[in-house]
């Protein structure tokens, strides 16, 4: 056991070293930290309120007062973009977390109990995986209705198969490693042993998958909102802002340009970090 402990901590140390050297990943991490920070302190640093309407400054272009211009309600787009970060990041993170939770539970159940439960759950997974992710999200929203919570559920539902497969695979390989024997020998419950060894081994992969999923999640939130199936108005979600800005493309394109840039920046940062994590934690994962 001490062997494993040392191996584990040196794994993380090595990974950290590798990550630090990856400039792109570090840049991504920095941007992400910045975005999170901005999202957290948004109410403090934003020059206006996100729902603050000013009917004397409708559809104005970029100016000193309004660095990103205003929309057709006179709302400051810069403020709304900042507040949009809160929504995208929180909904995205919660959605991925939900997917992890569900996937973990499903994978654990399938891997541990095995046999027909495993078969049934894997078939269920296949059925869910038979749908393109966006389609699944759209279907969930159609049934549950629009709103933040439902978007989180939708993201959770299309994310969980990946996590389920991962956890199940880990459990299966752990089982093969005669852990059952060791557990019975040491008197501890088999499940407890599995769980205590599950985490350190899978944490790395979970981290990588989760970070890449976060990028997809942020894109999905924006896409759903763009289709009118996402966050409720007047929330300043980036996708909704893009959808609203469509009709003003000719007279006020800035309404559509800036939220889109925000999405690109956020997803870029997450992907760079995710790629870097993957490279750092396990070069073997590159092929998966």
């Amino acid at each position, binding site marked *: 056991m001490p062997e494993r402990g040392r191996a584990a901590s040196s794994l993380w140390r090595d990974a950290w070293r590798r990550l630090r050297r990856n400039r792109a990943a570090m840049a991504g991490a920095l941007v992400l930290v910045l975005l999170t920070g901005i999202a957290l302190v948004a109410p403090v640093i934003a020059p206006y309120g996100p729902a603050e309407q000013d009917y004397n400054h409708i559809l104005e272009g970029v100016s000193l007062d309004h660095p990103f211009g205003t929309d057709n309600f006179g709302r400051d787009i810069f403020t709304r973009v900042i507040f949009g970060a809160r929504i995208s990041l929180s909904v995205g993170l919660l959605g991925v977390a939900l997917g992890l939770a569900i996937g973990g539970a499903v994978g654990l159940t399938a891997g541990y109990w095995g046999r027909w439960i495993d078969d049934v759950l894997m078939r269920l997974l296949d059925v869910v995986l038979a749908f393109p992710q966006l389609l699944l999200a759209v279907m969930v929203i159609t049934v549950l209705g629009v709103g933040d919570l439902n978007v989180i559920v939708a993201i959770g539902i299309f994310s969980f198969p990946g996590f389920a497969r991962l956890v199940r695979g880990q459990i299966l390989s752990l089982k093969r490693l005669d852990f059952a024997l060791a557990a019975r020998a040491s008197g501890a419950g088999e499940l407890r042993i599995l769980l205590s060894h599950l985490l350190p081994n899978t944490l790395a992969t979970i981290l990588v998958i989760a970070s890449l999923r976060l990028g997809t999640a942020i894109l999905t939130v924006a896409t759903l909102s763009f289709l009118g199936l996402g966050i409720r108005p*007047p929330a300043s979600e980036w996708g909704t802002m893009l959808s609203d800005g469509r009709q003003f493309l000719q007279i006020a394109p800035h309404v559509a340009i800036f939220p889109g840039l925000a999405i690109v920046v956020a997803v870029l940062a997450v992907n760079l970090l995710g790629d870097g994590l993957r490279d750092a934690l396990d070069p073997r994962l590159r092929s998966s």
Partner: protein
Amino acid sequence: MAALLPNAQHTGVVLAVCRGGLTMDRVSEYGRLDEEWQRRGLDRRKFLRLVAMGASVPTLSAMIAACRQGAPASPPAAAGATQAPAAAAAPTFVAKTVGTPVVAVAPTSAPRVDRSFLVALNVEPDSLDVQDTFFNASLGVDKCLYEGLVGLDQSMQIVNQLADSWEPSADAKIFTFKLKQGIKFHDGTPFNGQAVQAAFERVLAPDAQLKRHGYFSAAIDHVEAVDDATVRLVTRQPFAALVATIAHPAGGMPSPTAFKQYGQDFGTHPVGTGPFKFAEWVRGDHITLDAFSDYWDKARGASVAHMSIKGISDPSSLAIAIQSGGAQFAGPLNAAQAQQLQSAVGVKVVESDSISVYWVTMNDQRKPFDNNLVRQALNYAINKDAVLKVAELGKGKIVDSPMAAGVWGYKSIKTYEYNPQKAKDLLAQAGLPDGFKTTLRFTAPSKDRAVAVQSQLQQIGVQVEAVQMEVPAYQAEESKPLEDSTTELLISNWSPSTGDADWALRSIYSKTQWPPAGANYGFYFNQQVEDLIMQGLQFTDEAKRRDAYARAQELIMDDAPNVFLYAPRYFSALRDNAAGAIMQADGIPYLRTAYYTS
């Protein structure tokens, strides 16, 4: 006479685009009364108007008698506001009687050119089966393909189309129409009594699953073809509004041969008697109509050889379509596009009145909106100019009455000026100094209005959760009866296709129209207003009618059952070398007279 009615478009007859059944007093022999009226030197147009407003025979007789005596007759007692076929039931409108067209004949069309006229609408028609659609876009195309026994022209006047004349029976249950002769459908089927009977039987059959079934079966019991040139429409109850009902575009006559042949596919193979006939429909792309060379009214046929209709749901793209010359007519446009097109070359933007009004419905039977103070507070809290600016870039008119200025019977009452402080005071008075929480439901087109309203109500402490719903879901919710209703606030809109105060008021403010029967989604009820609305139908004296409606409007504005917003403008655009197509005040595009100026 002209002085009575400032807007010429309302010298016509009132029409009933009805949602539920309407009952009427027993009437008799309007023709006789007509003659009597004229003998006394009274204005015949006034007579027709009164008859259209629902004046019953006893009333008219009384009026004639009163004229003799020089004293106004008192109207019959206001009827109970129910839809049951009670004898003393709610009065209704009576359309004009022995038939000659009320208005002057429409002008002749421009000579036909061998060109195609391209129309871009804001949505693709759903079905060209005239008895199976509610879309304005579909109805616009239907008006090129079909004609009814009677119809509406582009200024919403009722005109005879396929009928030469018509006449109600003594009890107003049987309407006999004399049909024009020699008319053929596009497929050669002769238009005659049998065709009319077949067409009505189609929509009246409950297993037909046609969307207009409810609309017609509420009024009509059955139709008999007496002979080739005569049909009788028999109503369930005495129903004088029948002619108005079938003048709506939904009353267009489809060819029996065609709908028997195509069955459920008739929506993509429409056949009527109109100046255009159907050529093809490339679904998702465009519909092509050809000029019908054997159209019966030679002088008023199609002025272009082909018409191509496209549905473009993205507003920017709709504007681009007309800008680039890809279409000759584009409409309806939204305000942003209209503004942007003002500066475009080769395009003229047409701004037309609408009789459509937007407001925020409040569920008047539900706390806290059952309190007049709260309702008034909300009215003071909304900056209507701002909502107009946001949603329509300022184009439109704040309403100072439950109806738009273009509707007959309109009276300017008052607006609640923007006064958030007063709003807060009123809320405090009502026992809600800290405001309250509520939900506002709306559909996608009203999103800007909803967000603006939400933001303004926020200022006085009313926390509004704005819930956007898709049209079918929204309609399902708002149509629930009171005991099941979860309605609190709605963004609503109404366009009284009749152009008359009755349908502008009764449909929204009468208890007979409480959901699921009608459109009184706010469950408003005020006995006085109820009486006034019914009186308005009964009074034969036009001035009296106006007074009744004016008083009703005052009471309604005081009750503030809704937050009245504005009447928008309709925008459409034409290329410089095109004309003849326009948005009607009720939102249906009028296309059949489209032509090229050069």
